[in-house]
Every structure is written in structure tokens, then in C-alpha cells.
């Protein structure tokens, strides 16, 4: 088991390097991206001297492979560079923002699990029932709706009209401020989870070993507890892990909507300010969060399904 975990962690290394390379290519190799886009703000347009000075200041006059070497070397020491605007280390700026983002993502995932899982489960227990139909219509709607729009409507209803919850901001970091953003971010994963759970449970219910267990006279409760849940869980956890990635993307939008002081807000504000090191750093950290979660999910598999770690 320990060996499996170690191997899985080692497998992350090439992915992390590849992702860093990808982000590096996007932001550095695209010709003149940083200098010319700063100038596109209208400050000293078409001034070759200014472009040269900016390039020198950001070290963009050095060859690409040297810059990439430096970038990876700094990265290995957890150095993401210095913000163009505030002159603070990027890691420091990101460090302040990472907890609110994780808190939001975890809360949204809890919402999705608490609602999506039982809905999908009970829908599968009674296929074709009213609950089943409602769940399925709700799931396809939940996957089609722009989440930030739902958030906007929830803000209007619960914050501005009813006055139950604060409409935006982090507040003191309490639960009241978390409710609306977490519900908003949780809608997508909730819908997908309900759908996957239903499909997974239906799949397991139609297998031979369930029929055997039934014919042996096993009670429904024990059947579900011992056979269905455990077997459906593998598929459900895969979905959750993959869903975390698109949630990191959606979190950017939801944070901006609710003025939530997380990585997403930092990212969007920095794009507006053309603060490239911060943009690059926050994107890298968002992707890393996703990679770590997926590794955790893989390890969880092995716990649930012992066949996997030997494979």
C-alpha cells in the first residue's frame, strides 16, 4: 500500500513539469506577449526603447531555454517570482489566497455530496418513479445552467430581497458568507454526481452477484450496505475527482461574482493589471490543487478496491 502511494506520488512529478512547461510556453514564448500587452494599455505605445527596457527588466531578452531553466529551478525552490505591481513574492500573495479557495471548494463538494449522492441513490432504487424523473431532469438542468447566473439570482433572492445572507465578501471568514458561494459552486458537481450515482447503482444492481445475493434471501438493507455501495463507490469517486478540476475553473468565476478573496479573484485581478508572474503562479497553483486531489483519489481507490493497487 505504501509503495503504491509512493509510486503514485512519483508519477505526479513528470505531469507537474509538463504542466509548468505548458504554462511557461503560453506566457513566455508567445512573441512580445508581456511587453507589448503592457504597452497595449496605452502607456507609451510603439516605443522601441520602452519595449527594450521592459524586456530587460523582466529578463525577456535572454534566450528561451535559459529562461525556462531558471523558471524550473526557481519553481523547485517554491519561488514563483515577484509581482510586477506590488513587488511582493508571488508565493506570498498566493499563500494568503489559497485557504479561502480551498474552503470554498471543499464546502461546495460537501454540498454536492450531501444532496447529489442520496438523490442519485434513491432515484436508482426506484427507476421510473416520480423522484427518479425529477432527479434526472434536475441533473441535466444543473449541467446546462451557467452557475454564476444561478449565483446571481440566489444573491438577489436570499441576500437582497430576503436579507438572510450577506450578498458578497468573506466577512470574518464565518459560515454565513460561505453559504451562497458554496451552493453556487456546488450545483454542477451535484448534478453530475446525482447522474453518475444513479448510473453506477443501476449498473451494480443488474450484476449477477446481486441476483445471487437476492436469491439467497439477503435483505435489501444488507444488500445495499454490503454489495451495492462498495461497488458503486469506485465510479462515484472517479467522477468526484475529475469534477474537482472543472470546479477549480468555475471557482474563479464564482469568486469573482461574490468578491470572494481567493486565488480566482487574485487571478482575474492580475489579468486586468497584466501582472504576469501572479497570473502564471495562480494558474499553476490551481492546476496543482487539481493534480493533488486526483492523486488522493487514486490512493482512495486502492483503499476501496484492493484489486487496483496490485494492478
Amino acid at each position, binding site marked *: 500500500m505504501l509503495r503504491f502511494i509512493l509510486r503514485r506520488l512519483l508519477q505526479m512529478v513528470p505531469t507537474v513539469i509538463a504542466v509548468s512547461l505548458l504554462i511557461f510556453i503560453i506566457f513566455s514564448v508567445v512573441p512580445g506577449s508581456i511587453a507589448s500587452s503592457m504597452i497595449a494599455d496605452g502607456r507609451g505605445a510603439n516605443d522601441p526603447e520602452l519595449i527594450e527596457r521592459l524586456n530587460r527588466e523582466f529578463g525577456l531578452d535572454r534566450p528561451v531555454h535559459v529562461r525556462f531553466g531558471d523558471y524550473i529551478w526557481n519553481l523547485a525552490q517554491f519561488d514563483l517570482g515577484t509581482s510586477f505591481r506590488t513587488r511582493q513574492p508571488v508565493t506570498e500573495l498566493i499563500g494568503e489566497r489559497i485557504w479561502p479557495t480551498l474552503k470554498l471548494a471543499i464546502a461546495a463538494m460537501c454540498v454536492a455530496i450531501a444532496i447529489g449522492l442520496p438523490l442519485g441513490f434513491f432515484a436508482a432504487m426506484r427507476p421510473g418513479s416520480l423522484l427518479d424523473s425529477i432527479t434526472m431532469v434536475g441533473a441535466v438542468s444543473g449541467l446546462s445552467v451557467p452557475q454564476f447566473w444561478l449565483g446571481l439570482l440566489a444573491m438577489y433572492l436570499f441576500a437582497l430581497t430576503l436579507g438572510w445572507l450577506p450578498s458578497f465578501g468573506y466577512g470574518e471568514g464565518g459560515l454565513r458568507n460561505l453559504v451562497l458561494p458554496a451552493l453556487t459552486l456546488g450545483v454542477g458537481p451535484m448534478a453530475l454526481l446525482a447522474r453518475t450515482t444513479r448510473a453506477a447503482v*443501476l449498473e451494480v444492481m443488474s450484476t449477477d452477484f446481486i441476483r445471487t445475493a437476492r436469491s439467497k434471501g439477503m435483505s435489501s438493507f444488507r444488500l445495499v450496505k454490503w454489495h451495492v455501495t462498495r461497488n458503486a463507490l469506485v465510479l462515484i469517486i472517479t467522477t468526484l475527482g475529475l469534477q474537482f478540476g472543472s470546479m477549480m475553473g468555475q471557482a474563479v468565476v464564482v469568486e469573482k461574482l461574490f468578491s470572494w478573496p481567493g486565488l480566482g479573484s487574485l487571478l482575474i485581478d492580475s489579468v486586468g493589471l497584466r501582472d504576469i508572474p501572479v497570473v502564471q503562479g495562480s494558474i499553476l497553483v490551481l492546476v496543482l490543487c487539481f493534480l493533488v486531489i486526483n492523486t488522493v483519489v487514486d490512493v482512495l481507490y486502492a483503499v476501496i478496491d484492493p484489486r487496483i493497487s496490485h494492478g
Partner: protein
Amino acid sequence: MGLRLNLVLGGTLCLIVIVAAVLAPWLTPLSPVMDADLMNAELPPSAEFWFGTDAQGRDVFTRILYGARVSLTVGIGSQLINTTIGLILGISAGYFGGWWDDLVNGLTNLMLSVPSLIFALAIMAVLGPGLSSLLIALGLTNWSWTCRIARSSTLSLKSQSYVQAAKTLGYSDFRIMLTQILPNIVGPVLVIATLGMGDAILAEAALSFLGLGIQPPQPSWGNMLTDARELIAIAPWVAIFPGLAIFMTVLGLNLFGDGLRDWLDPHMRTRPV
């Protein structure tokens, strides 16, 4: 029964959007950008302004009709790029195998490990806002599923006797891929493209909402919602209708895509979906 319902309902919703986008100038006498009138600002829905007016007094209904053009262009355009990339990489990887296959596989896994919206956001941050940037950003970031399906189907088709026969007849590799393999994977690829169109429209809305996509005053369903955030307390209709338009369009595409998949997959036809 249920399958047909998906296809019909989804198809109808998609058709409405296409008609709105194509016939926009004939469906409304107003201009989405020029007909601003501060005297009419923030009027609630009425017989004259069906969906109300926004902060500049522009007709929300008109802006939604024209916004459909942006959504459809982005949805169709980005999926054309994605599908082309996915098909070329996937079929060639499955067909040739070897180091090329390893490379494509690595690339696909890399794409899957970066959340696509974040990837698109990074590209938009570099290219700057606008329709062409959106097409590039969303067209380059969502081809991995198409590639995977194309690759695995090619792998299994490669050993089919008719492909072997074509080889014996001396068909070129390119001709075999184009005439023997491609037609057999059109179905599942079409399903992915339809569902992907919905994702692209949602992503466009999100990026424009963040101010990185279509820039005002040009209307897009996403950037209409940016203004709506400020107006929500006094003019909720400015928020409700563009969001509803996105929802209906994406729902249509998702239902149509699901219906298409069930219809193409005989295995699914017998099971309750």
C-alpha cells in the same frame, strides 16, 4: 420514448437559437449597440420592451437576439477546431502507433490534467479579449475526449478485415484513415462535439462575464450579465433573461447530444436512461 423526447426537445431548443441568431435583424427593428436611450434606462419588461431595458436604455430582447450570434459562432467554431485536432491526432495515433502514439497519449493526458476553463483563461490572458481569441482559446483546450475516442476506435478498427483488405489493395495510409476509419467514428465524435458546444457556450459566457471575452458594447450573453451584477437590486430582468438564454441553449444541446448518443448506441436503447 424517452430518447425521442430528448432529441425532439433538444432539437427544438437549438432550432430556436439558430433562428434567433440568423434572423436577428428581421426580428427586431432596434440595434443592439446604437439604440441606447438614457430616457428609457432600466425599464421593466413591457409590450414595447419585451425583456425590459438595461442601464443604457438598450432593449434587452434585441441584445439577446444578437448575443445568440456570438454564442453560436463560439460554440460551432471552437468545436470545429477541437474536433479537427482531436480527429487528426487520435486517428493517426491509433493508426501508426509507436512513438507518435506515446506522444499523443502524453499530450492528451496533459490536457486532461489542466482544467479546460483555466487553460482557456490563460490563453485569453495572453491573447487579449475578442471573438478570435475566444475561438482559439476554446478551440485548443477541449479536444482530448475526441482524441481518446478516435484513438481507441481506430485501434479496434485497424484489425478489421476490410481495413486489412484496403491495405492489401495498396490504399495509401491517408486514404485508409479517411475512407475506412473516419466514417466509422463519426457517430460518437458527433455526440462529443454536440455536448462540447454546450460547454464552449458556457465557457464563453463565463469568460465574457469576467471581462476577458467579448467586450462591451458588443452584446454577448456573458457580458450582459456583468452589467447585471451591478443592477441586480434595481433591474433584475437584466440578469434573468441573458442567463435564461444561455440555460435554454445549453440545455438544448445537452438534450440533443444525450438523445443522439442513446439513438446511436443500440446497447443503451434497451436500458432505461
